[in-house]
């Protein structure tokens, strides 16, 4: 008898996701799908709104990384108000935005690794779910949990002084920023009491990386081979090939490291990237037009970024990058769990960049906004914590938005996440007549490697129930249970 297993909602992943696994009468997994079951609709209801409202409105897509949407929209509107892209802003405008973005990167990566992922590493994929959560981490590994909480707090404080508040601020406006960094705010972050200062964050970020590397050494097979499959990678890179999460050119490399998208201008993204719609998910499936719908999919996010960039422009992270690259002899890394390794290298990079920016006197400048000849259309891309984020707006003669197209990071990773889920389900469940909680968590572990934030909505962490439904071959529900 064939069966259909539904994991709904997926836990320790913010937002709502659902996984369905079809198993035939021989116990073989025949199909696995990750469904995104929430409809957001921001592209539609931003239409008709004044264009300058977009950065504040669209950031409500997400409670973990609203800054990414805030800044991507502001970047698109920079083009519309004639401020150009990237270096078109004043030094204060651009550096304040960068500081905001690094602050967010730092807190988001920390949340991802410490709060959502570390329980799987510390207690095992099939560990007792009652303690396999952040509370369990706090009880058994207090120092690590405290570091995670305080590091996230520091990132949120960086966001607060640049955007006005920790979640859903208003800092970035078309053409620049609405405030600079006061000396008091700078000193609060630079010289704050331990542990809340930039120096300590660099030290702790290095410590988190060392923790992961130690875990990797002891669990090589799991970290290297869990849900491993080759793919293309895509991200922004700086003009000189450096990792740049705020601005750059769009680059993609194939599984062998060959460039398949050669540093294109983001304003031209529609010439290179298409989106496919499938009837079983609200999330679209982006692909590179030159390679087509079947072969044009790619990974984005920390792993992809370290696959596409040539170097990291901060010394400690660069040193770690070299170790990371040496592990695959310079070739693109295709190991799913190495997303976390890459994530922690980027966390270190963000801490270094925050420290560097805080020492930059441009942040105390008063020239905040640039404007030029108005345009009707603008595209803003940046690297959100989970990957490349596209915002594209067109306005009418009355300054209202008439078209918006958003390709969010999670969407870019749609096929890789589906592949990861399928890989794990096939390996864990084929031939097993009893589906255990640990097997189902393994499926979720694969998703969490890419993204803790499926629908850009926040919920009580770890509180979502897991519902399992078994169907017969005619899709009739034959049993269900909750955990």
């Amino acid at each position, binding site marked *: 008898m064939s069966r259909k297993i539904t994991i709904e909602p997926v836990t320790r992943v913010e937002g709502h996701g659902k996984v369905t696994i079809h198993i035939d009468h021989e116990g073989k997994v025949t199909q696995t799908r990750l469904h995104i079951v929430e409809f957001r609709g921001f592209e539609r209801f931003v239409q*008709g*709104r*004044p264009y*300058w*409202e977009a*950065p*504040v*409105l669209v950031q*409500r897509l997400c409670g973990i990384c609203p800054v990414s949407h805030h800044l991507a929209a502001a970047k698109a509107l920079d083009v519309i*108000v004639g401020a150009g892209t990237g270096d078109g802003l004043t030094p204060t405008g651009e550096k304040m935005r960068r500081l905001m973005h690094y602050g967010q990167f730092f807190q988001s990566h920390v949340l991802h690794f410490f709060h959502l992922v570390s329980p799987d590493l510390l207690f095992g994929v099939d560990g007792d779910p009652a303690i396999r959560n952040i509370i369990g981490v706090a009880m058994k590994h207090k120092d690590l949990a405290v570091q995670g909480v305080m590091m996230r707090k520091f990132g949120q404080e960086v966001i607060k002084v640049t*955007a*006005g*508040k920790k979640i*859903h*601020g*208003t*800092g970035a*406006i078309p053409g620049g920023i*609405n*405030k600079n960094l006061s000396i008091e705010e700078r000193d609060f972050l630079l010289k704050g009491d331990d542990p809340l200062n930039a120096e300590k964050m660099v030290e702790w970020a290095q410590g988190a990386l060392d923790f992961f590397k130690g875990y990797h050494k002891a669990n090589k097979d799991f970290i290297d081979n869990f849900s491993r499959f080759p793919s293309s990678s895509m991200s922004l890179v700086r003009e000189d090939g450096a990792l740049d999460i705020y601005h750059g050119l769009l680059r993609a490399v194939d599984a062998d490291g060959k460039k398949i998208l050669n540093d294109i201008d983001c304003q031209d993204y529609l010439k290179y990237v298409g989106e496919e719609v499938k009837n079983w998910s609200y999330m679209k499936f982006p692909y590179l037009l030159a390679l087509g719908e079947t072969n044009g999919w790619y990974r984005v996010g920390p792993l992809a970024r370290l696959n596409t960039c040539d170097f990291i422009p901060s010394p400690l992270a660069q040193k770690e990058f070299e170790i990371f690259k040496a592990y695959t002899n310079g070739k693109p890394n295709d190991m799913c769990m190495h997303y976390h390794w890459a994530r922690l290298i980027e966390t270190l990079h963000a801490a270094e960049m925050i420290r560097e920016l805080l020492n930059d006197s441009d942040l105390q400048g008063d020239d905040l*906004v640039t404007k030029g000849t108005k345009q009707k259309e603008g595209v803003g891309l940046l690297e959100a914590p989970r990957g490349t984020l596209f915002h594209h707006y067109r306005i009418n003669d*009355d*300054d*209202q938005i008439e078209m918006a197209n958003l390709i969010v990071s999670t969407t870019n990773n749609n096929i890789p996440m589906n592949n990861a889920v399928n890989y794990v389900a096939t390996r864990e469940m084929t031939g097993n007549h009893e589906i255990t909680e640990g097997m189902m968590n393994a499926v979720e572990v694969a998703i969490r490697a890419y993204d803790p934030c499926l629908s850009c909505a926040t919920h009580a962490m770890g509180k979502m129930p897991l519902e399992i439904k078994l169907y017969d071959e005619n899709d009739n529900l034959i049993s269900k249970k909750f955990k």
Partner: protein
Amino acid sequence: MSNKIKFKIDGVTCEAEKGQYIVDAAWENGIYIPTLCNIPGIKPQGSCRICTVNINGRPMTACTTPLLDGMEIENDIPEIREIRKAIIESLFVEGNHFCPACEKSGNCMLQALAYRFQMMAPRFPYSFPVKGVDASHPKIIKDQNRCILCKRCIKSIKDEDGKSIFAFYGRGHKLRVHVDPELADKLTDELAQKAMDVCPVGSILVKEKGFDVPIGKRAYDNVPIGSDIEGNK
């Protein structure tokens, strides 16, 4: 000769000029009576009712009622607070007020009153009216979703001949405030900014600028609405 008279608000003896409107007299004595449609110095109309107080036991609008000797006024009492809260809630449900993305947030009188009177969720059902956005004027956007029809713009934004540049159109639930088409070109940059400032909500927006005051520096970010009045005590 002084025309000062004595009156009481919530049992506190106050002094003010005879014939002054109660709101003005209360504010001079450091007692906050909330207002929304009222603009100091312009003839009041008492349309929003948020300034309702009990005068000698009867509910009346404080912005339109002249002061008389020996008046006993109840202002900050549970019954009156509840009336005001209900008025605020009704204004929210009659429009489409989405504070999170509104550029007037932090400077919005309606939002500030909702905080001051601790509105959590409205007791009335949302009507979600379809009201639209009029962006046809080159200098301003008129977001009808947020308009509370207070007439502040109609009363205070006038051309050099004293004609109101904003006007009511339609009747009943189709009543809207628009720029008078015949006077549209009289709306200078200065008057457009004044119109935005005088609007107690985010219904009149000057084009191509917004969110330029950072969070923390906006009118009601740090203290509740009315704190400046109460600071006069």
